[in-house]
């Protein structure tokens, strides 16, 4: 599995790593019960599948609870500054196409201070995998509302309730021309791992929103989908979109292009939307993202979009190669002596 990770893979021999190989010697310092633990375990569990030696993997984060992540991974890593991880990862990825570069970020880190870097990384399609741990709160600074907090949220900084309309991370990513957009849940290791797998295989930027419970400042924010599995609208490529305890409900499309929740019995299975994550146009993925603005009822989970587009890093490399092919390897003496010169003495 090396598509998204761009490596030739195993170097000389066969690499047989396990989750344990990806645990660093640093003590994990999240609050007991924090959803970050489950994500860490899932990521460490998935890493061996990359088929890359540890030194070829880099985790870059900003600032926040989530952003502690790199310390716990026995890979290369950087715990950088608030919001800037996508920019830093971009520089690393485009200059080192042999690495597998991952960004770990929070809802504040990615969508508040770092919103611009995020949307630009998405449109450029740089080969980085962005994992956004969305707990709908600022954890590290002790509980102010974030750009994904639901409207009206009472927090330390909004004693009368927040007055911002929140972002829908999937919608904004799609609006920003993302080529891979998915959503998954901290505690669902299997689903999370499956999404990581697809993200890793994707060539270009993969954006993965992970619902993550902050049991200290925003406990239960995702219970409607974390605990009530019947609310998970599982998006599966090529399958009719169904959900509910027994798949008794589904998603259909209205004439105006929007999506609606329906009873399968009432409309018949044939009326259900069939999910196509590779659809060239993001219109339907966008419509699906609007089914749940915040996860308080039935909410789509899975890969919304996964399409091919030239990868920034590769095109840059191709330009370098083309220039070199045309002009030969740069010759400094020729360069500085280019243009009009003259001789003295």
């Amino acid at each position, binding site marked *: 599995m090396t598509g998204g990770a761009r490596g030739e893979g195993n170097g000389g021999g066969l690499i047989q790593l396990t989750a344990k190989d990806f645990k660093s010697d640093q003590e994990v310092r999240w609050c007991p019960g924090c959803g970050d633990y489950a994500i860490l375990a899932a990521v460490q569990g998935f890493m061996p599948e990359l088929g890359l030696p540890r030194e070829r993997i880099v985790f870059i984060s900003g600032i926040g609870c989530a952003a502690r992540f790199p310390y716990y991974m026995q890979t290369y890593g950087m715990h950088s*500054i608030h919001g800037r991880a996508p920019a830093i990862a*971009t520089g690393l990825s485009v200059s080192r196409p042999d690495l597998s570069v991952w960004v770990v970020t929070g809802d504040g880190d990615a969508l508040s201070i770092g919103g611009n870097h995020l949307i630009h990384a998405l449109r450029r399609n740089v080969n980085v995998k962005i994992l956004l741990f969305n707990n709908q709160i600022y954890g590290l600074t002790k509980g102010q509302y974030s750009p994904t907090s639901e409207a009206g949220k009472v927090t330390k900084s909004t004693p009368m309730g927040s007055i911002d309309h929140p972002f829908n991370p999937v919608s904004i990513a799609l609006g920003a021309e993302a080529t891979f957009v998915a959503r998954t849940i901290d505690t669902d290791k299997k689903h999370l791992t499956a999404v990581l797998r697809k993200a890793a295989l994707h060539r270009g930027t993969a954006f993965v929103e992970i619902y993550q419970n902050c049991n200290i400042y925003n406990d239960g924010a995702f219970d409607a989908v974390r605990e009530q599995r019947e609310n998970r609208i599982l998006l599966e490529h090529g399958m009719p979109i169904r959900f509910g305890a027994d798949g008794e409900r589904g998603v259909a499309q209205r004439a105006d292009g929007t999506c609606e929740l329906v009873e399968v019995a009432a409309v018949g299975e044939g009326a259900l939307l069939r999910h196509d994550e590779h659809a060239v146009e993001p219109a339907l993925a966008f419509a699906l993202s609007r089914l749940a603005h915040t996860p308080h009822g039935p909410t789509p989970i899975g890969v919304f979009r996964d399409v091919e587009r030239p990868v920034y890093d590769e095109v840059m490399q191709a330009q*370098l190669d083309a220039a070199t092919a045309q002009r030969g390897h740069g010759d400094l003496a020729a360069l500085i002596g280019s243009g009009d010169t003259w001789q*003295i003495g």
Partner: protein
Amino acid sequence: MRYTQGAMAKPVEQRDGVIIRFAGDSGDGMQLTGDRFTSETALLGNDLSTLPDFPAEIRAPAGSLPGVSGFQLHFADHDILTPGDAPGVLVAMNPAALRTNLADLPKGGTLIVNRDAFNERNLRKAGYTSNPLEDGSLGEFQVHDVPLTTMTVEALRGIEVTPREAERSKNMFALGLMSWLFGRPTEGTISFLERKFARSPAILQANVTAFNAGYAFGETSEGFSVSYEVKPAPLRPGTYRQITGNTALAYGLIAASRQSGLPLFLGAYPITPASGILEELARHKSFGVRTFQAEDEIAAVGAAVGAAFGGSLAVSTSAGPGIVLKAETVGLAVALELPLLILDIQRAGPSTGMPTKPEQADLLLVLFGRNSESPVPVLAASTPGDCFEVAVEAARIALKYRTPVYLLSDAYLANGSEPWLLPDVNALPDISVELTVEPPVDGEFLPYTRDVDTLARPWALPGTPGLEHRIGGLEKEDGTGNVSYDPDNHDLMTRLRARKVAGIAADIPELEVDDPGGAELLVLGWGGTYGPIAAGIRRVREAGGSVAHAHLRYLNPFPRNTGEVLRRYDRVLVPELNLGQLLRLIRAEFLVDAVGYNRVRGVPFRSSELAEAIEAML
């Protein structure tokens, strides 16, 4: 005066140096005209120095005062230091250009104007109530009022260009005339035009024809009775080219990449007057140069930090407003102890200020503009050509000491040019880096141990087996680099970072003083004011004054003998294009009662004002 064309051989007068200023509307092509005249002059072997001066607006309304664009060139048969205080010859393409530039022309100066442009509309736009060509107000000058437009259009009759295109060739007519007047060789310009307009034969023909017509007009017109010759200057032997500061920086970075063996990565966001470096580097992908035009300055330097982590020679370029935005990320690089170059092409401020104008007022910003104790070496280039060498030296320091380094240039160096003796690329310093590639025997890699001499930490690149490690902006434990809140560790790390930068003083040349002997006054400068200061000092010395001169390339740390040098003199004068920033630093550090000569006018010093200031202190 009236001109009719006639044919006769004209006498040639010798001059040891000439200062010409071309001034016209933004749309008149004055920068191109100046550039070409400069190239002709360079090929002739004169020493030279140029000062382009253009408005921040792309093209302000035609004929308006803010729309005037100028280009000044100083060339001579001896080595010169500045583009000159005041032009001896002013070419004014329209009334606005005349009005904004005339004050600089000394009495008796030569004035060449495009008479055709002095119509009522243009006169009004320039704020003239009467025509200066007719009201006698130019009596003190040697005026040549040439109908440049008419003659150009005339000359182009029969060539398949629109009337507007024909008119637009008038700058080439002017260039041809000036080329004749100063005996410049014309082949270079003609082959330049051939390259530039290769795809539009008619335009090419129009330009060449206008150029030749201007030259011929000079030869034949009665109005110009003599032409001038300025002999080549006795420059050091070798191959020369003209170079601007921005180009020299770009080349210097490519040279540093070559000499370090590391690929060059530039993260940049366009901004005047720094964009030229991005644009130049973007053209050299065959050198393995990656240029990344980011969404903003923060992303630009962020990407550079990422590339540095990955083992590139990482650079970010900007000017004041953008340099400010990069500060938090540079602070991260200080904590990470990764090599990084930040190039600040200074311009007049505060805030947006005057984007195209030079200033030296970002020195304290780059030294102190980050939260907490965050020491960073600072270097400054002194001339356009010097930019090349300083870029290599800044890279050397960044790589050797694993530290961000600021390099200061300014709008004057960036766009100004001078003849540059091409360096021998095989004699450039080796600045290669020893990367850590082997895991230590005991298996534990400690990313924050230090080299005993340089205090630099090991640099182990992602991809290196067994050296996986994590770095970050939280305070790190000495040695392990683990996050640490231990008070004594923080004190230690703060001092180690400071000592590492201070220790660079041992690794840079001493401050050289140019003292003819017996001087009591030292003039201490830094950065892009080198030329005017040296020229001012030359004037003073020529008038018999005794004064010493030292110029700082290293602003942090200072050369190790700086204090000793300063204390050698009774009086120290520090001229700066700011309100006294170096002055403040040396007063604090060496407790010398130096005084400043400070001008914040958005233009380079004039050597004459510096000579006066120096003389006042003798």
